[in-house]
C-alpha cells in the first residue's frame, strides 16, 4: 500500500464563499489502488473539497499536486483531461438522452456517412455503452431509451460508466450510494472495489459508515472546513468517526 505511487496530494487548501470558510488548510493524499472515504456532517466542506480537486472551484490558498506536479484547473474539463473523473450527487445526466450519448456527452465520436458527411457515430456510442455497463455488471437493456426511464441504481451506473469509460486514474464520487436501495448499494461498493483492483484512486463521500468501513483504505473526516482527523478502518471504529464528525 505505502509503496504505491501517490496520485494526488492536496496541501493546505482553503476556499471561502463570501464570508463562509468552506475549507481551511485541508490536506490529504491519494495513492493508486487506494480508496479514501470523506466523512463529515452536512456543510462540513466535503463537496467543496472534491469540487476543488475536480476543477469546479479554484482554491484560495494551498496547492493541489497531481503525480507530483502542481495543477490549477480552470474548468472540470481540464481536470478530466488530466484523468480526474467526478460523479456528482445529482449525477448530472442528460435525462433525455440514452446511455451512450451520456457516456460520450461533450466528446461524441463521429463517422463519415456516404464517405464524406460527418455524423454522430451512434453505433459506437451504443456499443461502448453496452460494453461499459457489462463491465459494471449492471443490467441495462434499453440502449435507445432516454435515461429518465431508468431506476436510481441504473442512473448511478450510467454516471459511473461514463467516468470509467474514459479510463480515469482518479475517480471521485459524491455520495454514490445515498439514493440507492440496499442491493444496489452493495453493487456500487463492489464496483468501488473493482476500480481499486484496477489500480485507480478513488475518493468517495459517504454518510454511511457501513459503506465506509466496507471499502475504504483510509477515512478523512472534515468538520466545519477543517480536517478533524484521518484514520485507517483497522485503527478506528464507527463511534470515533462520529465523534470526529460532530466534535467533542
Amino acid at each position, binding site marked *: 500500500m505505502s509503496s504505491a505511487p501517490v496520485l494526488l496530494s492536496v496541501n493546505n487548501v482553503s476556499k471561502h464563499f463570501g464570508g463562509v470558510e468552506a475549507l481551511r488548510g485541508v490536506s490529504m493524499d491519494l495513492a493508486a489502488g487506494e480508496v479514501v472515504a470523506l466523512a463529515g456532517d452536512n456543510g462540513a466542506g466535503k463537496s467543496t473539497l472534491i469540487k476543488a480537486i475536480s476543477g469546479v472551484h479554484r482554491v484560495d490558498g494551498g496547492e493541489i499536486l497531481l503525480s507530483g506536479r502542481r495543477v490549477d484547473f480552470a474548468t472540470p474539463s481540464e481536470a478530466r483531461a488530466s484523468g480526474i473523473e467526478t460523479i456528482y450527487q*445529482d449525477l448530472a445526466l*442528460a435525462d433525455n438522452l440514452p446511455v451512450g450519448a451520456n457516456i460520450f456527452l461533450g466528446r461524441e465520436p463521429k463517422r463519415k*456517412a456516404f464517405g464524406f*458527411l460527418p455524423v*454522430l457515430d451512434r453505433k459506437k456510442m451504443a456499443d461502448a455503452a453496452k460494453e461499459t455497463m457489462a463491465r459494471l455488471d449492471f443490467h441495462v437493456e434499453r440502449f435507445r431509451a432516454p435515461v429518465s*426511464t431508468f431506476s*436510481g441504481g441504473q442512473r448511478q451506473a450510467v454516471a459511473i460508466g461514463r467516468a470509467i469509460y474514459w479510463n480515469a486514474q482518479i475517480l471521485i464520487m459524491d455520495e454514490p450510494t445515498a439514493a440507492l436501495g440496499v442491493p444496489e448499494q452493495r453493487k456500487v461498493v463492489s464496483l468501488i472495489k473493482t476500480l481499486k483492483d484496477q489500480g485507480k484512486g478513488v475518493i468517495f463521500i459517504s454518510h454511511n459508515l457501513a459503506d465506509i468501513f466496507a471499502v475504504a483504505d483510509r477515512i478523512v473526516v472534515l468538520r466545519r472546513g477543517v480536517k478533524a482527523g484521518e484514520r485507517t478502518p483497522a485503527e478506528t471504529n464507527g463511534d470515533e468517526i462520529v465523534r470526529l464528525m460532530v466534535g467533542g
Partner: protein
Amino acid sequence: MTATATSARQESHGLLSMIVELRAWIFLLLLVIFFEVWARSAYGQSFVINAYNLQAIGIFATAPLLLGLGQTFVIISAGIDLSVGFTMGLAAVVSAHAANMASGVLGLDLFTAMLFGLVAGIGVALIPGLVNGLLIAKLRVPPFIGTLGMYGVARGAAYLLAGGMTVPVSNAWYAWIGNGRVLGVPILVIITVIVVLLMHYLLSQTRFGQHTYAFGASRAAAVRSGINVSSLTIKLYVLSAVCAGLAGALYSGRFAAGAAQAGEPLLLDSIAAVVIGGASLFGGSGNIAGTVAGALVIATIQYGLVFINVEPFWQFVAVGVVIIISVLVDQSQRRLLGGRKDE
C-alpha cells in the same frame, strides 16, 4: 412485476409514445381528410390531388417554417426567441434597400443585386442574433426578457429604416426567387426544403445538435461534460436569427417589397409550429420533422379554410385548438411515461 406484464406494458407504452411522437402528422392527416371530404361533397373536386392547392400550402408554410426551424433549436435548449418576427421584418427592409442600392447606386446587374439583397438581409439578422445570444449567455438575462427587448429594438429599427412605409424592390431576379418555379415547384419551397434538410442534419447528426438537447434537459450535465454552454447559447440565437433573416430576405422577393411588419404574425406561428411538432417548452425534446409537420398543419388550416370559404378568422380558433390538444397530449404522456422506472 412479472416479466410478461412488464413487456406488455412496455409494448402499450411503445404504441402510445409512437402516437405521441407522430401527433403532428396525425393532425395533418386528419385535416387533409377533413378538407378532402368537404371539397368533394361541396365542390365535387379533390383538395389534395390538386397541384395548385399543394403549391399554395407549400408557400404558406415556408415563412412560419423557416422561423420555426431556428425556433426549434432554441426551444429544445429550453429557451425562446420572441424577436424572430421583427428580425424577419428588419431583414426584409434591409434586403430591399440593399438590392435597390446595388442596382441603382452601385450599378450592379440585377442578379448580383439580388444576391446582394439576400446576403444583406441575412447579414443584418446576425446583429439581433448575436445580441440576444450575448445577453442570455454572458449577462444571464432570461431568454424571454432578452428576446422581448430585441423584439422592440428590431421592430423600431425596421420601421425607422423603412421610413414607416414598405420598400418596393424592382428586380426581376429577386421577384423570380420569390415567385418563380422550377419544374412546377415554387423556388421558395425548394429553398425551404434545403434549409430543412440542413437543420435536420445539424440537429440530429452533429455535436452542436446533441449538445442542444443535453443543455435543454440539464444545464448541469452540459456544463460538467465540458460543453461550452455560453458559446452554444450564442450559436443558438444566431442560428434562429439567421433563419429569420433568410425568411425576411425571401419575403422581399415574394412581395417585391420589404416591410417592417413582414413577420409580425409569424412569431406565434413559429412557436406554434414547434409546439404542435412535439417539442416541449421546458426544453430537451423536439425535432425538425415535427416542426415541418407543425408548419404544414398551420398552413393547411390557413389555406384550407380559405379554400372552403369559411370566415378566415376561424383559422385562429383552429390553430389555437390544435396547440392546446398538442400540449395536452404532451402532458398526459409525461404523466404516463415520465415517472416510469424500470424496477
